[in-house]
């Protein structure tokens, strides 16, 4: 059984308030039966320095990622991972993390690929919990293994692959990387290891909205009105648009995916997790350099 939703008037403004919990709610519900709290960080060692009491660590690189197929784990491995963390199909999973929940949103997105129904983000993440002086622990929680069914990943709804992004050209794209990554600008210095991509720039017509714009200074999500100003007025999205978001490897764009899907209520939002690491290196796909979104290429390259 999932836990009751938080009745927080502040979340009523969002399209799907059931996807958020506050630090107050979590503090009051810690230890509740069928609640599993997961910490998903950009800095892999951070959990060990102290975490929310009872929270377990989840790591995208070693646990959600399959190094052999360069893809997310399959249904069987996900089921095994969930069981080992005491998560059953009807558990309420609350995920939080460092850096305004950037990697927490990524983990939530992967949970959604497997259709785990009740998965929520802790608004404000790890930083807010700590800033409020709440309790942390370095104790590794004891876990009673659960049973989790093998559910195959559904990549068709919230995930886009490169050929689908090529087909999508002409529809809204949001590039959530930093302005320097978007324009393709690079600071050249001796002994400076280059990023992984061969070409710098962005996907033609993509609007630049760095992911962190959606987060307030305390790491919580901005108000719906502020988010609408950013994504509707500045980036030019319209309600009902079919949107694809991308970044470097799909982790920052998961944060934006969460905002568009669950806070602003877009029905069709996909995260292109191949992102710039794939697009920037792929043979026969066009890019645009500089600050302008760029035009749709007449000849879209060999692959389009």
């Amino acid at each position: 059984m999932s836990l009751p939703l938080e009745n927080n008037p502040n979340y009523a403004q969002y399209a799907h308030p059931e996807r958020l919990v506050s630090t107050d709610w979590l503090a009051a519900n810690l230890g509740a039966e069928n609640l599993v709290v997961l910490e998903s960080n950009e800095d892999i060692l951070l959990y060990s320095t102290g975490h929310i009491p009872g929270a377990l660590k989840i790591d995208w690189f070693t646990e959600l990622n399959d190094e052999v197929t360069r893809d997310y784990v399959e249904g069987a491995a996900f089921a095994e991972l969930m069981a080992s963390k005491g998560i059953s199909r009807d558990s309420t999973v609350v995920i939080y993390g460092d850096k305004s929940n950037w990697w927490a949103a990524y983990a939530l997105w992967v949970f959604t690929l497997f259709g785990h129904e009740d998965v929520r983000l802790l608004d404000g993440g790890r930083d807010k919990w700590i800033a409020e002086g709440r309790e942390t622990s370095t104790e590794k929680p004891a876990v009673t293994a659960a049973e989790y069914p093998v559910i195959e990943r559904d990549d068709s709804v919230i995930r886009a692959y490169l050929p689908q992004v090529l087909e999508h050209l002409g529809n809204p794209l949001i590039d959530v990387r930093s302005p320097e990554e978007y324009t393709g600008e690079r600071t050249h210095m001796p002994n400076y290891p280059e990023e992984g991509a061969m070409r710098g720039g962005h996907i033609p017509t993509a609007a630049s909205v760095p992911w962190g714009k959606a987060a307030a200074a305390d790491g919580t999500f901005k108000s719906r009105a502020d988010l609408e100003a950013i994504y509707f007025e500045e980036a030019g999205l319209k309600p009902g648009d079919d949107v694809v978001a991308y970044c470097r490897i799909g982790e920052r764009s998961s944060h934006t995916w969460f905002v568009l899907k669950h806070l602003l209520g877009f029905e069709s939002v996909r995260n292109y997790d191949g992102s710039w690491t794939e697009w920037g290196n792929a043979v026969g796909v066009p890019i645009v350099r500089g600050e302008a979104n760029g035009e749709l290429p007449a000849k879209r390259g060999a692959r389009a």
Partner: protein
Amino acid sequence: MSALNPALAEIVEEFSEVPEADRLELLLDYSRELPELPPHLAEHPELLEQVVECQSPLFLVVEVGADQVVRLFFSAPPEAPTTRGFASVLAAGLDGSPAEEILAVPEDMPARLGLSRALSPLRMRGMSAMLGRIKRQVTEQLAAA
């Protein structure tokens, strides 16, 4: 192929001797041991150079002495333990070494810690970037001396 200096070689050996699953714990131990900045730098943050390639803020200062002995100082916040861990490995392995030993450290040194299955490639690049900046600073300061 150039060789690791003895202190760094010892650290690499230390990492390779623990099982893969425990290497992150070892890196965490290092992160706790990163020395504080000495007063002459702690009071002058403008002297610190930021390593922008790291995912978390890391500042470093390289001082090449008249005797060509190199002092290394790092600063990274507690909420960036991985970055602190890498900095601490370089501090323990290279601080106080002769300039020529530092310049001879192979570029692939970070890979030899055996962490590439536990840490994302971007993280590993962050450590390579730290090493690259240290070497560049050493080269520049030797040339200016």
